[in-house]
């Protein structure tokens, strides 16, 4: 049987098979080591041109992609389009076609509208990587969460992972749900009913009504960022009440039957969805998540560029061409 490939684009984890997910995670393993070297560079994407097209503000994801690209020796350009393409007066498809006319190889896109990455991928020949589209998916975040869980538990299958908070507006939640369920984990979602999407059970998840239920059930908590504007929009009464009812606090964790791994995609609102002593505590893997982010993005870039998976491909400086 030939090894699975990823196809042209990575728009989400929903379309990926378990084999494809494992391929990315396995490919990321040797790339972790590259970032530990004194000279953090392999020639895998030498000569490739990548545009980081960010229609939404992002610090962590954009920098993580840029490091991943540079450590693979790609040439990168960052385009920060403030606001939507609409307010710029140029449509997304025009922007992309103009970039492509400059003969690029890949586009990493972050956009406020769900479906923007898929839309782009269907209209240009370059590889498209979704760096977050609206409330749809954030596949590389999902992958780095999977890698971090696998690092800690040495498996994904059979794990119980509770995704806590604003699932309704979260692309991180959707990518995690697809990735985890496909690899055999059990997924629970926990949050105020106002912030859980309609019919979410049909995605194959368990609804955990209270944060105490999630803590009692799970092996790991993935605590989502609560966007402050959700309060103005009337989804929750106040941040203070949110912390009281749904906050992940040390007191609550101490009552858990076992020790839980704590993940958070960042940026954190300390004292809202997560207390500082939990975020900074011994079971928090929030910073290892960030480290893993570079490795999985290197793996995705490498595989989409046509790189062959295999043990030690990065250490050997394997060329993608």
């Amino acid at each position, binding site marked *: 049987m030939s090894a699975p490939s990823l196809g042209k684009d990575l728009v989400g984890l929903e379309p990926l098979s378990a084999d494809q997910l494992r391929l990315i995670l396995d490919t990321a393993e040797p790339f972790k080591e590259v970032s530990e070297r004194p000279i953090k560079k392999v020639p895998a994407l030498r000569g490739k041109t990548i545009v980081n097209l960010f229609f939404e503000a992002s610090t962590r994801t954009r920098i993580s992609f840029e490091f991943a690209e540079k450590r693979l020796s790609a040439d990168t350009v960052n385009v920060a389009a403030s606001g939507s393409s609409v307010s710029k007066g140029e449509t997304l498809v025009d922007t992309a076609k103009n970039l492509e006319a400059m003969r690029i190889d890949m586009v990493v896109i972050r956009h406020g*509208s769900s479906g923007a990455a898929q839309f782009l991928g269907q209209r240009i020949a370059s590889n498209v990587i979704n760096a977050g589209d609206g*409330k749809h998916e954030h596949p590389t975040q999902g992958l780095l969460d999977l890698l971090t869980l696998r690092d800690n538990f040495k498996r994904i299958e059979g794990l119980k992972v509770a995704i806590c908070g604003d699932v309704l507006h979260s692309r991180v939640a959707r990518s995690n749900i697809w990735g985890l369920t496909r690899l055999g984990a059990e997924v629970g979602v926990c949050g105020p009913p106002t912030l859980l999407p309609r019919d979410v059970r049909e995605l194959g998840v368990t609804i955990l009504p209270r944060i105490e239920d999630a803590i009692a059930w799970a092996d790991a908590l993935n605590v989502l960022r609560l966007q402050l504007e959700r309060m103005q929009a009337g989804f929750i009464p106040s941040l203070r009440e949110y912390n009281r009812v749904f906050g992940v606090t040390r007191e609550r964790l101490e009552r858990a039957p076992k020790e839980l791994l704590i993940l958070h995609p960042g940026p954190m609102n300390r004292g809202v969805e997560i207390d500082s002593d939990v975020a900074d505590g011994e079971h928090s893997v929030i910073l290892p998540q960030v480290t893993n982010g570079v490795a999985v993005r290197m793996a995705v870039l490498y595989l989409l560029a046509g790189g062959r998976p295999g043990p030690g491909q990065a250490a050997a400086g394997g060329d993608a061409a």
Partner: protein
Amino acid sequence: MSARPILLRGGRVIDPARGSDGVADVLVADERVEAVGRNIGEPDGAIVVDAANLVVAPGLIDLHTHLREPGQEDLETIATGAMAAVAGGFTAVCAMPNTDPVCDNQGVVGFIVRQALRAGKARVYPIGAISVGQKGQQLAEFGELVGAGAVAVSDDGKPVMSSHLMRTALEYARVFGIPVADHCEEMTLAQGGAMHEGIVSTRLGLKGIPAAAEEIMVARDILLAELTGGHVHLCHMSTRGSVELIRRAKEQGIRVTAEACPHHFTLTHEACEGYDTNAKMNPPLREAEDREAIRQALRDGTIDVIATDHAPHHYDAKEREFDDAPNGIIGLETALPLALTELVATGLLTLPELLLRMSTTPARIFGLPGGTLATGAPADVVVIDPAARWEVRPEEFHSKSRNTPFRGRLLTGRAEMTIVGGRIAWQRRGFAGAPAQ
């Protein structure tokens, strides 16, 4: 110069208004139906159409069309929309008032009437706005609108959020005997929604519009119709809950009529998969059980009519992110074929029942001429080939716009010839029954 008489020979003549259905000839002359019967003699100079194996029926009437003129002539004009109408078997369409300027005064009503006469295709009946500028505040001058030719009032596209305004509109419309047509959408629930709220919106990460956003306003409008005795016409019903509310209201004798669109009895929210903006419309495509409820309501008459909600958009307006794409699809050239395929071929409705929903009943509830082949009725006739198998190719449409989710769909049945006011307004290229020139 009066048009030559037209004799339609040997078709299956269906007139739901008179409950008749059988093989006969139809003769039209002087803009009227002259005779329906066997072996009608051929008058001098008559155009003879061979309608054998075809259906001859009163022309279809669409109560819900957006013709975009004045204001957005790049999307559709009254001439191109009226042409698309006759090519879809419609002899009359009612034009919604959300134009620019809004059709809230006699000047715009008169302009639409004149443009339609100039085009000389389907009849176009303007619908006036309920409120000045469709702003939902001050009542428009219904008397002046009706005087200039408006047949109903509606703020379609903009829901009437003020219950007070809806109440006064229903009361005041009684003076003129016109219906008030409402786009039922509770804005605070629907705000920012891009599709139906359900499992598909959850997966796609799009903001959903719950069925309750429609049903709340359906319930309100029914209560206000009861309060005022006015006639409320509910546009493009899409949910099972709406159907149940209407059914109960009709049982109570409240003056409510309702329409449903072909896309709502054909598609579900799954058509939005892949972020297909041609499946973006308002009200949105709903769930399978809603679609089934709409079909059953069309069968039992809870929903009175099929209307298109023909909504032209330029291709590049739809060629964008789902959130930013405009709502709506064109429908005039696919409505009859979809209804024949989805409702008649499936055995849900008989052909006479379908024609009741697409011609006779629309005429009755908006008080329009037509909808019958009775002697002396306007000579508005459609000739239908119910067996034609064809594939939807939007590039062949007469509408200026191409925004349809039905591209490539195989359908059974379509119009072959449309006669408006005793003249052949359109016939399909290659129509076998076409008269020798």
